[in-house]
């Protein structure tokens, strides 16, 4: 019997239906404007894909509209692992429910919500559970969400039936809703969640299989390592693209922070802006950075330590941008973006930049402020 965790954030997406660009902090207003829950319906769509294997799964879920109601209506075997504290669901409920499921060793957590929900799930389980998101929120920036609720259900089914065994790490992104309502998009990277890696079914193939994301990242790392110069400080930016550099060098690292390497040894972990300025002003250094999120931000999102003062001290010629070709293709030809808060620095970074895309392989790519 497979154990499936199910969390529905019933208020996800309600703000959007009444033009509020998100529900964080404005639920009451949304309700006042006549918003109706849509996450439960979308969760049902996903669960429909599991109906014919319902005897092979036990759904571990939360009381009421956080999962119990929908799963029970559809006739699944359910067990409650979390009781909502009050009638109105909050982010604490998602967090606590996910933690409870982790303790139960569920095979997978299927959750319905938006970017805010994904953040809560990440906070609760980190890299300890495999998850799939049912897109139900207003903001869906995290690739942790399947394209459609049905797809989320299909993917869940393939994973539970062990038709998919591999997992991949994807970014947990969220934008600042208050800023978004004011017309600004500030995406931040919060961490990485594990999702099932969907195998592709093919027919009529005439081109080779592309290298896996992991293999591509590894070849980028080897290129950077092979070109490391003695006495130069290598400032390694956050993200899974830069991680294999540290892994290949067998060094500790912080996935979301900035680390510094000198002569292939760790010099400092999770450094602050001030530490970086001290290093960059007095030493020869190179910065390895990868664009964050789907929008292609190089600077100004999710890496606040790399301020314009740091970048000025490092200089454009010492910035190594690392990105797989797949990551670049996701930008659909749109340029990398920089928004350092300083016009002069943005101007310095604009134009074209060489991107390391593999071993002995670079791409010239446009950067726009």
């Amino acid at each position, binding site marked *: 019997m497979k154990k499936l965790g199910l969390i529905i954030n019933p208020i996800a997406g309600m703000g959007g239906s009444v033009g509020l660009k998100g529900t964080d902090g404005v639920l009451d207003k949304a309700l006042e404007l006549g918003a109706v829950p849509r996450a439960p319906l979308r969760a049902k769509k996903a669960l429909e894909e599991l109906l014919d294997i319902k005897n092979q799964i036990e759904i571990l879920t939360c009381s009421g509209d956080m999962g119990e109601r929908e799963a029970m209506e559809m006739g699944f075997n359910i067990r409650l692992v979390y009781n909502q504290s009050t009638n109105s669901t909050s982010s604490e409920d998602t967090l606590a429910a996910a933690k409870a499921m982790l303790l139960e060793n569920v095979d997978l957590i299927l959750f319905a919500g938006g970017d805010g929900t994904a953040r809560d799930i990440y906070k609760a389980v980190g890299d300890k559970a495999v998850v799939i998101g049912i897109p139900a929120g207003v903001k869906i920036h995290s690739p942790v969400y399947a*394209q*459609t609720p*049905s*797809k989320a259900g299909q993917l869940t089914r393939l994973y539970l039936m062990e038709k998919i065994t*591999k997992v991949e790490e994807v970014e947990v992104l969220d934008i600042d809703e208050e800023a978004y309502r004011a017309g600004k998009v500030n995406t931040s990277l919060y961490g990485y969640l594990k999702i099932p890696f969907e*195998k*592709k*079914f*093919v*027919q*009529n*193939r*005439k*081109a*080779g*299989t*592309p290298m*896996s994301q992991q293999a591509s990242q590894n070849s980028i790392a080897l290129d950077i390592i092979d070109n490391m110069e003695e006495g130069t400080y290598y400032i390694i930016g956050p993200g899974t693209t830069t991680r294999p550099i540290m892994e290949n060098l067998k060094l500790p690292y912080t996935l979301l922070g900035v680390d510094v390497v000198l002569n292939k040894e760790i010099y400092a972990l999770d450094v602050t802006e001030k530490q970086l300025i001290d290093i960059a002003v007095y030493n020869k250094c190179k910065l390895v950075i990868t664009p964050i999120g789907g929008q292609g931000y190089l600077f100004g999102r999710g890496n606040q330590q790399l301020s314009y003062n740091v970048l000025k001290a490092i200089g454009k010629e010492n910035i190594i941008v690392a990105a797989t*070709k*797949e990551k*670049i*293709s996701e930008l*659909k*030809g749109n340029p990398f973006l920089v928004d350092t808060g300083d016009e002069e620095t943005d101007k310095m970074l604009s*134009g*074209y930049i*060489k991107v390391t*895309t593999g071993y*002995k*392989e*670079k*791409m*010239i*790519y*446009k950067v726009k402020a």
Partner: protein
Amino acid sequence: MKRINRNFKVRNFHQAKWDEPIIFELSKKGERGILVPKAGEEIEKAVGDGISALPETMKRKEAPNLPEISQPRVLRHYMRLSQETLGADVNIEIGQGTCTVKYSPKVNEALARLPEMTELHPLQDESTVQGILEIMYKTDLYMREISGMDRFTFQPSGGSQAIFAMASIVRNYHRDKGQDEQRDEIITTIYSHPSDAAAPAVKGYKIIYIHPDEEGYPDFEAFKEAVSERTAAFIVANPEDTGVYNPRVKEFTELVHKAGGLCGYDQANANGLLGITRAKEAGFDMCFFNLHKTFSTPHGCGGPAVGATGVTKELEKYLPAPLIDYDGEKYFLNYEVTNNPYSIGKIRMFNGVAPVVLKAYAWIMSMGAEGLYEVAKVAVLNNNYLFKKLMEVDCVDAPYIRGKQRVEQVRYTLEKLTQDTGITTGDIQRRMMDFGMHYWTSHHPYYVPEPATLEPTETPSKEDLDEYIETLKHVFKEAYESPEIIKTAPHRSVCHQVDESGMDDPEKWAITWRSYLKKYKE
């Protein structure tokens, strides 16, 4: 299966499916295809037993490990496999964009199968192979005329090997000039064939890719950033996979020359260019043609082909040895031109795949100069007919150069279809198999989202094009109305959905029977 409705252009089709084992599994000890009788006494007396004349060193100590199997069973085996293949002669071959799969006249096959060709051996004395040497020499002359280059070699046995030959020439040219250490970068574009990057990488070069600008032309500003004293060469296709021709290509080659680099033109597929543009006038130092694409030889299932590689006079001495020449009386293998330490030596044994050169020669001769020009015109016309018809379909689009025509192929996008229905281009690809048609997406990664690359060439008729278009439209309609049938496709092909995860993992590969036994049976 229902009777065919002749008014409905979408054709009924079902591929044969045989539960056919691997030929090694069919082997039965002692079973034979042909039993050769022992020579009779008188015959043996006259000519020997046929075995003892063989030198001892050439005799096998043990029988080869081949399947033991009767003739009809062998025939049945391969007939069945052929029925499980969607070959070029049974489908309207429009869907394999970038491959240039055209109809290749059978008369050229017949010529290549004549014993005068098949019985030749590359080690024969020159005086006994004057015919094929003449054909190779004259094909070289035609290639020179078509490209503007000064000398061709037919040694490379395919496009990637031709690019490898070009990269080798680049290396030796700079070595000759004492600049090899300094020049370690080769520039290409993202919509050129991946081998334009891969083959130079094998040669040890660093690769720099250029993206297109908003119009789809290689971004000249980015190109300027890429060209430097480190540039060894620029190797590029034009038109690229998008079917967009870069009209400023000469400015690109001039910039590279100014920086001291060489320029190589990937003309593997020159179908839209014959008699219209030439490598020389675009400023290239080298180019190559895949004879199995443009020159109709035809494709050999990854088998022996020819990547005819041409260079300017200046680069002639770097070509692989020997070249084929004519001294006014006889044709001969010329080792003199390349007799220097900077020749790239051998790219392949002997002088290339001679029957393929023969087929290309025959095709060129049958077309004539006007015919070659006609090929380009009709290929471009066919493509733009298909382009116009497909762009009228709501869910189809093609990025770049809006309102302008394409050359010989187009990379379309089905992004809207995917957004509307969740059906991806990969799903459409599988469903098209149910109608006996190929449909190709794109090389990876997909820079054009949900891509489809179609290339009709000059050979399909308007009726063929219409049938392909109608079939595509039918599948698009299914995507909106009954997506499930597409998601689970193919239904009428040899096999249904293939799990390709093993293809990413070399540990799981078994590319020979022996490695299969080793990995899975021992």
